[in-house]
């Protein structure tokens, strides 16, 4: 490797030796301490490699040994340099390219803002621009510390900010503070969001209006947001002036869900056959031109995919130019039959997936009942799934000031 490197730098020449005794030439070279390598012989003659510097000293040896030499190949830095001398513009271009690349890379072209959640990136961008971090700035001229401090000062929501450069991008990394949610202190009632039977009700604040075992409907008032001081013994006694508070409590209720799923035993499935045709139309202003029409074949089932191409808004202001490429795929109908068991399973899965979006994750499922319904149509299998759960059905509703709270 090192030998190859030194050969490249000094330059090597491959010569062809022809004559009566090429061996004599080689021996003379060796005696002269000329380093030779890659000696090969074929029908054309004897080939040998040597250093360029040695090549200039072998003339007397060649004469002495009565041989002829001919340069077959040459390589190395001296030859490359000579070649480059003749092509000055290429070298200038390469150097210029490197210089331009180096200059352009030392500027900032893009500013990326990462890590923002609640703060708008535009807000940070504005602050950053004002303080001297703009696209087109020299990277070394940017006062990173100042920009960082300014962001910290202007936006109290920011916990940490770091500016780093990756190539021509300036990355502004923001870590936001997690500010604890301000609890709503406004007086509120708790109402039911679902129909159900109350299994547990504990009013932590406010006055509960329902008992365990009561059936409630959606929207019913469960806990009223008034301060409660002792049981109300007699309604005739004028009640003390009640104070509106935020109701709080645990309300658990039994809730029933029902859902149906059906599935056919025999279905038609459409598959693409692979044959397709493409129709192209061009729209200029209000006019539409058909560039390539697709012949209609009513006997075939087709699926059409329309691909609409518009120019960007800034290129499409004066005349609206639009192209529509519609691909017509030929379809093949296929009858697929499934067994009764499979149909039941499919219907069940469908019914349960429909229910899953309704049941909240915190709900505790008590029972699940699956029932296959008898249908007049032979082809259809319908399954009814009913689920019973116990879940929290309370929801806060703020008491508006004009509401007057009747006490009973």
């Amino acid at each position: 490797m090192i030998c190859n490197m030194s050969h490249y730098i000094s330059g090597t020449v491959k010569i062809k030796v022809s004559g009566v005794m090429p061996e004599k030439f080689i021996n003379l070279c060796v005696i002269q301490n000329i380093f030779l390598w890659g000696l090969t012989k074929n029908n054309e003659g004897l080939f040998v490699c040597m250093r360029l510097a040695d090549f200039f000293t072998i003339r007397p040896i060649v004469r002495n040994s009565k041989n002829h030499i001919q340069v077959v190949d040459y390589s190395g830095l001296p030859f490359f340099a000579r070649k480059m001398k003749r092509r000055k513009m290429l070298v200038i271009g390469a150097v210029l390219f490197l210089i331009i690349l180096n200059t352009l890379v030392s500027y900032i072209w893009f500013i990326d803002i990462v890590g923002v959640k609640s703060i708008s990136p535009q807000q940070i961008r504005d602050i950053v621009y004002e303080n001297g971090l703009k696209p087109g700035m020299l990277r070394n001229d940017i006062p990173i510390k100042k920009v960082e401090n300014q962001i910290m000062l202007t936006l109290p929501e920011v916990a940490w900010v770091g500016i780093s450069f990756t190539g021509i991008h300036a990355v502004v990394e923001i870590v936001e503070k997690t500010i604890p949610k301000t609890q709503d202190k406004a007086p509120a009632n708790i109402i039911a969001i679902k129909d159900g039977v109350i299994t547990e009700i504990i009013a932590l604040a406010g006055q509960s209006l329902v008992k365990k075992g009561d059936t409630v409907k959606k929207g019913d008032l469960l806990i009223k947001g008034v301060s409660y001081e002792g049981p109300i013994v007699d309604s005739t006694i004028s009640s003390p002036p009640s104070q509106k508070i935020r109701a709080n409590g645990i309300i658990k209720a039994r809730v029933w869900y029902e859902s149906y799923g059906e599935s056919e035993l025999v279905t038609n499935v459409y598959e693409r056959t692979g044959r397709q045709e493409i129709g192209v139309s061009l729209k200029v202003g209000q006019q539409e031109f058909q560039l390539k029409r697709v012949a209609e074949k009513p006997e075939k089932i087709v699926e059409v995919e329309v691909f609409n191409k518009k120019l960007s808004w800034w290129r499409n202001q004066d005349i609206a130019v639009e192209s529509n490429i519609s691909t017509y795929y030929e379809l093949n109908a296929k009858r697929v039959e499934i067994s009764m068991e499979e149909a039941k399973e499919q219907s069940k899965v469908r019914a349960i997936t429909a229910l899953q979006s309704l049941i909240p994750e915190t709900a505790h499922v008590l029972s699940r009942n699956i029932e296959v319904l008898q249908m007049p149509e032979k082809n259809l299998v319908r399954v009814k799934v009913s689920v019973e759960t116990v879940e929290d059905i309370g929801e806060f509703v703020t008491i508006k000031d004009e509401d007057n709270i009747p006490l009973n």
Partner: protein
Amino acid sequence: MQYRKNRHLQRLAGILEIPQDIVLDLPRITMLGNRQLLVENHKGIIEYTPSLVRIKLEQGELLIHGHELILSNLQVEQILVEGTVEEVKYDM
């Protein structure tokens, strides 16, 4: 005379534990399988063809038969023969 001198030198080398190739000016031949053959302390090449290389030594010559033989390194003190070596023969 030459023979006697050699015998003395050889004994001396044996006593002093000096390598014999240095004392007696012998060639050192190293083979790497049948693909490389390094001859040190040679006196030049007599003949070279892809199937035969004849190397001149202090006494006699070394014949290397083979095919696709290449002299990949040629210096005053060593010759490196590459290719497929089939036969190495000493000719005194």
